[in-house]
């Protein structure tokens, strides 16, 4: 376990950019596409491996591997053993074995729930520079590669450490809203020279496919349904608060 940061600004400045290689992106898209064939909203997640470049405040992600879907304790135990096994094995083939975060797929941005918050905190606690990479398969299918990196903002991290269940007073005093709960880190994609050669080679061999489908109205409908669901939840919470205040 690394020592906690002395000041909260240290967490803020430690990583300013995430560098991915194209191999990592291809592996993530391959894994998500594989699972998407079975269900529309597969909770796909996996581990990112790489190294930290402290001089340039850059987190380089060089490899990744997928994890199984585990909602049960038994599943999580299997995943833990699997991660240890992979770590040992990857060391033998000279692949960076340090975990620097995790990746997750999203469906119309519904990934932002309690589980996600807990996972990001767990990874950040172990390593200050961990990031969560969110990959949007629907947007990518339409022609726009969508990979974004997030971490908890320093205030959110500090508050979570003190009390896992945020209370309203704590949120108000620190002016923590949904806007500054997560902090996005810019992502750049960088390739080695040999990968560039491979890309040129692939360019010659493949036909250039174009992506002409636009997001149809079903995309809009689903987004509206999710928005209505969110509003329903807020309504229910408001009613609960009102009833509680009335009974006081």
């Amino acid at each position, binding site marked *: 376990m690394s020592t906690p940061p002395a000041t909260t600004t240290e967490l803020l400045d430690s990583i300013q950019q995430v560098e991915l*290689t194209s191999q990592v992106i291809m592996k993530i898209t391959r894994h998500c596409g594989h699972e998407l064939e079975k269900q529309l909203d597969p909770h796909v997640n996996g581990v990112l491996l790489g190294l930290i470049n402290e001089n340039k405040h850059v987190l380089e992600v060089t490899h990744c591997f997928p994890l199984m879907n585990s909602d049960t304790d038994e599943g999580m135990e299997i995943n833990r053993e699997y991660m240890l096994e992979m770590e040992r094995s990857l060391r033998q083939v000279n692949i960076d074995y340090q975990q620097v975060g995790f990746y997750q797929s999203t469906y119309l941005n519904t990934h932002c729930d309690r589980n996600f918050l807990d996972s990001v905190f767990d990874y950040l606690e172990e390593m200050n520079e961990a990031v969560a990479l969110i990959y949007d398969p629907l947007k990518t299918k339409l022609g726009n590669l969508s990979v974004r990196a997030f971490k908890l903002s320093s205030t959110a991290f500090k508050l979570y450490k003190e009390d896992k269940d945020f209370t309203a007073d704590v949120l108000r005093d620190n002016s923590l809203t949904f806007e500054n709960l997560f902090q996005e880190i810019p992502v750049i994609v960088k390739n080695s020279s040999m990968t560039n050669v491979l890309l040129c080679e692939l360019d010659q061999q493949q036909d250039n496919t174009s992506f002409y489908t636009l997001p149809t109205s079903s995309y809009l409908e689903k987004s509206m349904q999710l928005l209505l669901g969110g509003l329903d939840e807020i309504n229910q919470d408001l009613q609960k608060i009102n009833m509680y205040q009335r009974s006081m």
Partner: protein
Amino acid sequence: SSGINAEWPLRPGRMAVETRSVALPVRKVVIHPVVLFNIVDNYERRHDNNKRVIGTLLGRYDKGVVIVTESFAVPHQETEEEVSMDMEYAMRIGELQKKVNTNMYTVGWYSSGIVINEYSSLIHAFYKCQCPTPVHLTIDTVMKEQKMKINTHITLPIGVKNGTEGCIFTPVQYSIHGAEAEQVSLKFFQQLRGTKKTPNFNDQENIITSCDEMISQINVVMGHVKKVLSGEVPADKELGRQIMEVVQAVPNLDSDTITNMLNSHMQDLLAVEYLTYLTRQQLAVSARLNQIL
């Protein structure tokens, strides 16, 4: 060097390798681009004293076509006199990957460099007991001919029964084809061209480039049609039929109906935008009120 490699009888003391007798026919290999990226990365990270790297190919077999979707590296050493690979590692990681990725099993192995020698046939014999017809993929990372050539082979038995028997590496047709999402990523990487870039999630740029491409393609077709009409180019029936199919695919509506459709769609979008803006303002106001109370 020729592609014929007779499988020499195993030296005493080596692990006896059983080959499955039933070989499935393989007509074609479809390689997903992920695998090639993995191999190049593996080659870049090799130990300094290794001239080539090997690893296992994972995928599935579907009616004569082997679809290779993933791969992983296997530690191995190769000198002038002998070759050794960590077979236990290959089997262990193969089992792990099978557990995590459903419907993916060992379908072959890869090596960097175009040389196929007797070491290749030894390694191929090991993979023969993992799957009935292993595919051998070679990718020329040394780039002997100024190109990164990719070759796929399978082995077929050759020789006289009860006499000298062996296997010959025969080439198999391959194509590089990925899923839609992989192709999108590839297109993005090719725009990089040696520089660093952020993936932009702005739909507008994508629409603009797609429209430009479509306009240029329509111009090409129109140019061809004009040439045929003026007699410069002889008419081709097949091409003519295909162009007619494209033209007939456009729905036959008059401009008023299309304008009405566009407008109503636009109105839907504006209504949604207004409602979401209203919701956001409501949330901001309630947050302020909560701070006061």
